[in-house]
């Protein structure tokens, strides 16, 4: 019976095409489509803030350099993961991550709880040459970050594209993106107050790379690393309430 039906399908290329699309389509529809409609998929985190333009630029450098190939940003719900890195990751934490950077390999340690664990100075030294701080490290040296000024010109376009995919940036954030990026790494600028008003009092405003005169790619990347795991307090509250 089945063989007979198959005889018919394999004699007709269009039937074969349709059957393949139908049969292969079911799995994706069942698993992916509900993720957009089931409310519990992403927890609500009212204190969640968006990336500042400088942090977003840093995130783009993280992607450009392929950091995700060796570092995950996902603490699993396993005891040793939690003991080693901190509270397990929640879906809410990466809700503004277009794309997500959960990673698939830990050649180096997980970075989901990295923010404020080390000083800016340590990060700058470490990124410039990891073996200066950790002699056994096999991480590449990213010396060009410190000598490359950050391109801040088109940050408004970046924020605007992020808004179009659903991140709640407002008009003021978009139009002041370049100014805000410079302000975050240059505390003496009068504009840094406006930045804090837009992104919250907790925003890190400081010279990240130790060089006050220029805003470099190092500033952006360190600013991003220092905010990892700190966009919302939800994971820390959940872990204390379960204990």
């Amino acid at each position, binding site marked *: 019976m089945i063989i007979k039906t198959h005889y018919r399908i394999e004699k007709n290329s269009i039937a074969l095409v349709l059957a393949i699309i139908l049969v*292969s389509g079911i799995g994706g529809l069942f698993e*992916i489509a509900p*993720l957009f409609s089931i409310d519990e998929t992403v927890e609500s985190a009212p204190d969640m803030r968006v990336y500042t333009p400088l942090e977003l630029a840093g995130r783009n450098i993280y992607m450009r350099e392929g950091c995700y190939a*060796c570092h995950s940003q996902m603490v699993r719900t396993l005891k040793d993961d939690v003991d*080693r890195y901190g509270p397990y990751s929640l879906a809410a934490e990466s809700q503004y991550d277009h*794309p997500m950077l959960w990673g698939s390999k830990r050649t180096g340690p997980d970075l989901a709880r990295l923010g404020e664990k080390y000083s800016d100075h340590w990060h700058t030294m470490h990124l410039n040459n990891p073996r200066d701080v950790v002699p056994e490290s096999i991480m*590449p040296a*990213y010396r060009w970050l410190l000598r490359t000024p950050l391109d801040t010109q088109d940050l408004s376009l970046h924020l605007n*594209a992020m808004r179009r995919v659903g991140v709640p940036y407002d008009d003021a954030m978009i139009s002041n993106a370049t100014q805000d990026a410079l302000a975050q790494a240059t505390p003496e600028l009068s504009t840094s107050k406006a930045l804090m008003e837009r992104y919250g009092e907790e925003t890190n405003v400081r010279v990240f790379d130790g060089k006050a005169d220029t805003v470099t790619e190092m500033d952006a990347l360190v600013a991003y690393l220092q905010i990892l795991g700190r966009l919302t307090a939800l994971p820390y509250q959940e872990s204390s309430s379960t204990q």
Partner: protein
Amino acid sequence: MLAQLSFRERNLALCAAGLVMLVGLLVTAVGWQDLIAVHGVIAALYTAGIIALLLKHRKAPAPSPERLKEYYDDPTKIGILLCLVWGVFGMAVGDWIAWLMAYPDATFDAAWASFGRIRPVHTTGVIFGFGGNALIATSLHVVQRTSRARLPDQFSPWFVLLGYNLFCLLAVIGYPLGITQSKEYAEPEWYLDIWLVIVWVAYLVLYLRTLARRQEPHIYVANWYYLAFILVVAVLHTVNNLAVPIAVGSTKSYSLFSGVQDAMTQWWYGHNAVAFFLTAGFLGMLYYYLPKCAGRPIYSYRMSIISFWGITFMYMWAGSHHLHYTALPQWVQTLGVGFSVMLIVPSWGSAANALLTLNGAWHRVRDDATLRFMMVAAVFYGLSTFEGSFMAIRPVNSLSHYTDWTVGHVHSGALGWVAFIVFGSIYSLVPWLYKCKGMYSKYLVEIHFWLALSGTLIYLISLWNAGITQGLMWRTYNESGELTYSFLDSMIAMKPYYIARGIGGFLFLTGACLALLNVVMTIKQASRESSRSDASTRAAAVDLPVAGAPQS
């Protein structure tokens, strides 16, 4: 080769190349300030090269209509060479970055040479460059033979092959410059993704047009797999790469999905790129070249049917096993485990079908390295699909995930299965295409086989050990309930395994170089011999289509 194109096809090719060149120049002009200009210039140069070749042959006399009575294999011939060149390149880069993990300063202090930027050069080079060209080249050969019909025209196969290689080239040049959307195995940015969709639709149309001209009532199994590969990859690629560019003249885009939905979409893509790019397509290869080479029919037709539909249905559910214990909802993870374990049935069905086909031809497996390549491929296919299902089980995954075991598993499939079936197919296909008795050197094929096998085994055993060591060190507690090892301890423990892996990779790479050499020498020898005698034309007489192409 170009003289085989009719005048109409030459003009069509000129128009298409000119159009792509124009787009390239336009992109360069609009995105002058952006890295996209580099891609624009390269696309323009690439097409300028094609146009120059076409113009050189424009005045060549019209090809003889006799050619339409034969199969059209020129794109396959070029595709095989491209496949091997990409293979050597991609594997060389792979071995380089393997050594970077033991000696991290081997990067000349250059941004473009840092691990994170050249890793996708390796993955794209071997998966899409080596694997993709092998699939396109063999699929065009197989679909003609199993349909007993010539390709419907001579322009579209070139458009598919050269357009696809333009995609690979631009992607691979882009990563060292920092152009990436950071999605694993889908790194090329939005405009390259659009270009690939255009090429891919042309591929599907070409395939279906050839099938429509077939002189056999049944579509052969190999074509089911090639069709599934073309169709499903199109769907996966389109959905996974949905993104909003920041501006038309910019490389940068932001993906439509975020966080958990993006994670599921990426691994739905990622796992099924393995299933439909690295499995279905190569099973198509296996189902044609293995029985042909062994001189025996496929063992079981029913097993082929069950395996094919099993793989097509179940793989699409399995992607979530890449996200165990993460913020992905548990119900999706559970579905992923279930289907991953069930996948053993169709996977082993295919592997068993291949091995049982060899039953009765084992003496040939012993004597003929070409057939042995295919046999080992089937064995590794069985082994790595078993390993995959095993690693998808949650407790196993809690140990294996994020470790080098995963990398070892991937290479068990990529080296042991994909590369072995490609080499086996190429070694049997090249002599058929060039109408000679065998490869230039049987001896080199034999050396290649043992280099490839020992390289693969060294690679797998070292990373299997590395991964399990890592996984165990990460979860070891001391008596006072604290973690025994720092992360750094586990990293230091990896060094001997990383060195061993680099050696295994080097052996495999050496084998691939021999394959390229052997194929080039075979082609040279064949062209010398065919100019001396017409023996080749007699040998070719049996390999002719029933349906030639329509006059154009």
